[in-house]
């Protein structure tokens, strides 16, 4: 597992793999190693049913991490994920209680609530120049407060609509869960945006050197605002899917997604300082985190131990990638 072995393997790899970001290759290698280690514990870790189940669980995190990646590429961070997720889920379920129109509009309404949180974040970061770490933490607290007021602090009684349940648990293509298809579509859209559009170029430019991007005539504030809005919307959409998965929303259902979403992006080789990273890496990071979680829980690792392992893994990865010297 040492770097020299990995380097040796990389040397013998086909050309298209050698050109790939070493961080992405490392992340995929870690996935394989995790699966092999797991299979020593139980044969079922390699069964197609288990893997498909993991992919489905991963897709919720994948949707949320997609938005997070966009923000991290800018060199910012979005800490309002937990209650953006919960707000999306609760508001979608709440809309469902208002007749057939409410049922039809449940999903867009939930997503729009997340976009609203993201817009507040974006205005704060881009126009008011508040550090993203502060403003997103603050909007997270406000969203939490609003949801507690709405629910009275109890578990919300509204349940998810059929459409939400279908998106999260149904099958359009036999054998492939809908959640996985949704993640694949959102992922493909993000790859297109990042590589083929002027918006994507601007995101990388701002992440690398905001001043140079600004002096190149890029409307940097608009780009930052849009990125935060997208992140909020995708977090809320993740919440909508989770509500569909569990049939209803729950208090603090998003808490379990903040650290994993950041970890997934960083594990996939996206620089926490912004400007560098590919979506393929985020996919690898999401799968890696999901597998790690699953294997730790199958091994009956207590929650405390799991948290410690996340934290340690993130610090280790930051040391590996975030410290790479900038070329100058």
């Amino acid at each position, binding site marked *: 597992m040492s770097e020299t072995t990995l380097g040796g393997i990389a040397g013998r790899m086909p050309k298209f793999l050698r050109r790939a970001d070493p961080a992405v290759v490392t992340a995929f290698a870690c996935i394989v190693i995790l699966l092999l280690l797991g299979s020593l514990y139980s044969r079922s870790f390699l069964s197609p049913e288990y893997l498909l189940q993991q992919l489905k669980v991963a897709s919720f995190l994948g949707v949320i991490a997609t938005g997070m990646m966009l923000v991290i590429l800018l060199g910012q961070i979005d800490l309002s994920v937990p209650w953006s997720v919960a707000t999306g889920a609760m508001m979608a379920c709440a809309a469902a209680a208002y007749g057939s129109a409410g049922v039809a509009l449940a999903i867009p309404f939930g997503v729009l609530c997340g976009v609203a949180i993201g817009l507040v974040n974006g205005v704060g970061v881009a126009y008011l120049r508040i550090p993203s770490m502060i403003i997103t933490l603050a909007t997270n607290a406000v969203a939490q407060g609003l949801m507690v007021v709405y629910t009275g602090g109890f578990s919300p009684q509204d349940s998810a609509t059929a459409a939400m349940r279908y998106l999260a648990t149904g099958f359009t293509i036999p054998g492939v869960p809908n959640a996985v298809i949704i993640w694949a579509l959102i992922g493909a859209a993000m790859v297109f945006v990042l590589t*083929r*559009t*002027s918006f994507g*170029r601007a995101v990388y430019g701002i992440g*690398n050197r905001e001043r140079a*991007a600004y002096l190149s*005539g*890029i409307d940097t504030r608009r780009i930052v605002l849009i990125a935060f809005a997208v992140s909020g919307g995708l977090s809320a959409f993740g919440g909508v899917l989770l509500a569909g998965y569990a049939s209803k929303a729950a208090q603090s259902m998003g808490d379990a997604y903040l650290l994993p979403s950041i970890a997934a992006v960083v594990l996939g080789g996206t620089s926490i300082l912004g400007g560098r990273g590919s979506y393929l890496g985020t996919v690898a990071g999401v799968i890696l985190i999901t597998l790690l979680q699953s294997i730790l829980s199958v091994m009956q690792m207590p929650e405390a131990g799991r948290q410690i392992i996340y934290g340690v893994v993130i610090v280790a990865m930051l040391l590996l990638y975030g410290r790479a010297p900038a070329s100058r």
Partner: protein
Amino acid sequence: MDGAAPLFRMEGISKRYGGVRALEKADLTVTAGGIHAILGENGAGKSTLIKIMAGVVAPDEGTMTLDGREVSFASPAAANQAGIVCIFQELSLIPELSVADNIVISDPPKRFGMIDRKAQRRIAEEALARAGASDIHPCALVKDLPLSRRQMVEIAKALARKPRILILDEATSALTAADVAKVFEVLKRLRSEGLALLYISHRMNEIAELADHCTVFRNGRNVASYPAGSKSDNEVVELMIGREYSHIFPPKPGPTAAAATVLEARNLSWADRLDNISLSVRAGEVVGLGGLDGQGQRELLLAFFGVLRGLSGEILIDGKPVSIASPTAASHGRIGMALIPEDRKTEGLMLPMTVRENLSFAALDRLSKGGIIDRAAEQRLIDDMVGLLAIKTAGLDIPVGALSGGNQQKVVIAKWLMRQPRIILLNDPTRGIDVGTKQEIYQLMRKLADAGAAILFYSTDYDELIGCCDRVLVLYDGGVKRELVGAEITEHALIASALNIHGEGAGPRQGVGA
């Protein structure tokens, strides 16, 4: 040098930054009880010399002797220990602390491991009195003092370190005329107490009043050393000019029929950096900005490009007043402005990104439809630019940071030419690049002007201004002090007006308009 045994001597000092030679076998001799002025153009090596003396940077070669013994300083603290104290151009005080705290900050008096506040106050009072600023209360916070008082505290702070050699690097640039007179009293008293003083200033009249001895630096070497008052201002300016190589500049077209004015400023002011600037640039004209470094030239270019907030005055494009709120507004639409920024590494390029991404970055809106980049169009335009500017790169998909400085600068210029700008602002575009690339840039500038672009060109290199510009505006203290046209643009005129020693502006200082 003859006379008394020198207190401090530097011999054969050389220093390179990367490939750029800052000092080349420079010598300097300092005697006790004298004020020694150091003169030179921007980049002549004065600041580097001072930094080496003060232990801020280490020389590549050469020796320094103090009292006849060879010394070397690992840090500014070591230089202070040896009695060499420097007052730098930029203030080094901490605004949130009191005057007394600042004065003793590097070595506070201690009692039982804690700072002895009584002793600290006594030291501060003594130092302030020596600096002739006993009216400043030692317990006042530095942030509550006006700039000129802070400068006095800075001098007191230096004196509290009991220096034998005191270096003042443009230390009077923030002072009012009354304060300057006071500081001069203090400096003369220190001289009579036997201190050696090194004085760096661009203000010729100050040097004439103060200095006993002068040394002129040019291109990293000391070219002349003479007793103060033995040379006229004109002779000194000629010593500072010199030249090692001459550039090949494209021929100027000479006076042509007046084209339409494209860019115009009326009474442009900003904070205390730009002072009532009016200028105009016609299509096809290269207008230079001259003057010493930091007299408002950069701010003027940024003001045109919509970067500065709180600007007063008017900017006119094609004779119509416009408000330019951001670089986006300046570069897009009918204004069509481009700025080649000062620092290509932090302002012009995103170094880790590829050559391709950097080249098309400023023109993305033109290369995309509905936000989606037209890759074929992008490739075509990039090929054109790489060919036009002869950018040497191992490929379009390598990081731009891997290119040489000259080629990086070409990428910065090319990325703006992709927008076909009508107005081009250049902020010292040839700094730190090789002579060959410089020539290509001069040719290109003239070519763009001939094609109808209006060019505003700031350079710290006087040769460039002479070789490239149809007109030069010389800035001093944020205002345009002189306009030189055609044959009037000579090194002598440029330097003389940059130092503001010509015409009616010869007084010590004009009050900065509020």
